[in-house]
């Protein structure tokens, strides 16, 4: 199963400050371990929100809001994509990450058709697929 790990932003990341050499070293080592254990599929850091934008949807109206955004707790500064055998394995990996200072890192499982298990009967699965096809034609 696949997981996304969301790393929140901080005043430093929002100011565009690069982490210290020491912190970068620790993170590189951790990433290396993830790769050499066959866990990491992808992972990137994000620029500060001052270089991003939001688009607000309202009926037919589209409003573009330029960064920076202030609600720092909701900002994402980076992410990983992992392939793990279980939620527990993903948690164990996350516990090894070099973070500190009360920061909270969020782990989310990525949806897969198998997640519906037996509740998704062949009939339902087919209906879902028809929906997808129709959605693709729209």
């Amino acid at each position, binding site marked *: 199963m696949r997981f996304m790990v969301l790393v929140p932003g901080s005043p430093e990341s929002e100011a565009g400050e690069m982490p210290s050499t020491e912190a970068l070293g620790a993170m590189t*080592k951790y990433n290396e371990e993830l*790769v*050499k*254990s*066959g866990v990491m*599929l*992808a992972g990137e850091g994000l620029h500060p929100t001052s270089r991003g934008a939001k688009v607000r949807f309202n009926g037919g109206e589209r409003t573009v809001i330029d960064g920076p955004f202030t609600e720092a707790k909701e900002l994402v500064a980076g992410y990983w*994509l992992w*392939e793990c*055998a*279980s939620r*527990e*394995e993903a*948690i*164990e*990996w996350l516990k090894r990450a070099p973070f500190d200072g009360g920061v909270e890192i969020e782990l989310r499982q990525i949806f*897969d*058709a*198998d997640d519906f298990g037996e509740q998704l009967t*062949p*009939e339902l*699965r*087919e209906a879902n*697929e028809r929906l*997808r*096809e129709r959605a*693709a034609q729209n």
Partner: protein
Amino acid sequence: MTPSATHRAIDAVWRIESARLIAGLTRIVRDVAVAEDLAQDALVAALEQWPESGIPDKPGAWLMATAKRRGIDALRRRVTLERKGELIGRELEILQQLDRPDLAAGVDDVQDDVLRLIFMTCHPVLSGEARVALTLRLLGGLSTPEIARAFLVSEGTVAQRIVRAKRTLAEARVPFEVPGHDELAGRLSAVLEVIYLVFNEGYVATAGEHWIRPAVCADALRLGRILAALMPREAEAQGLLALMELQASRLRVRVGPGGEPVLLADQDRARWDHLLVQRGLAGLRRAEKLSGALGPYSLQAAIAACHARAGSVKETDWPRIVALYDGLAALTGSPVVELNRAVAVTMAFGPEAGLELVDSLADEPALRGYHLLPSVRGDVLLRLGRPAEARNEFERAADLCDNERERELLLSRAVACGA
């Protein structure tokens, strides 16, 4: 944490740590069987203690320290119990090895140990089946019942294969090392073969009720990713991983709602796993950069990439696929490759040319009893507008096929040919 939650967490720690633990212990005691026993003892200790104490901050280091301490204690106890204070020579040696400070255990060394262990469990002195079982057990962290399920054999058979394999390695004094330059290519190809065999068992189950088993593919992918990361300069390690990622990208549409096989031509390409496609294509680029002439896995990855890049069967670059199969046939001389090449030739240059190639393979001993030979012939005949003969071929293919789902597909293709 509830006891069952702790047990699930211990399972997770074991999956992460077991290969490194067993590899590190093998370096110390120079015997995989002893190393695995010590690692298992440490796991038992974790199962006893962690539900009370919680999971330690550095579970890997805890397991290693516990494995060594328990090993030393057990051997010392035998010294006192047997009064005479005599251990047989080998046991004394193990005691000394465990008791010595482990100066070599730097972080990089741990990764090297895992690589050494891979070359050991895939050593040519072992039979193919033994290599697969031992690799999944020691590097994949799979239990004996899990391996038995993956290969549809009894647990007893797997257990016996593993015990015998460990004995063979000890008797043959197989060294714990990455082979030197002269030997490396051949030994690496044995490792790649083991991983791809596991993958294929999940991708096209040779027998049984299900046509694919994604969990088995996932185990192979993980091993492939580990190997590719540990040997970043080996083109074929990158090539095999690229091949598996590209093939696995189609897994979710390879079976229909009722579990029936869905062939490439009928797959909904929008639902391929595009993250895996991208990873596969990137892996192939790495392999191409590393090698002058592509090896067999990289060539197969290049063929899979032609499909991955195409929006449909019609848009596929079939002449390029034929050329890649030419290269693969020249390298492997495999009749199965020739058969695949015949399919590509049919698509690129028409069914007459394809039929000629298929018929030239009719007396090939290696393809006798191989269900895909009549299946391909049936397909080519159908394209030539000869449905009665095609029907015969599909029926013959169904007779030869051991997988129930695939047999059903072949029979339905026979029926679709009409009378």
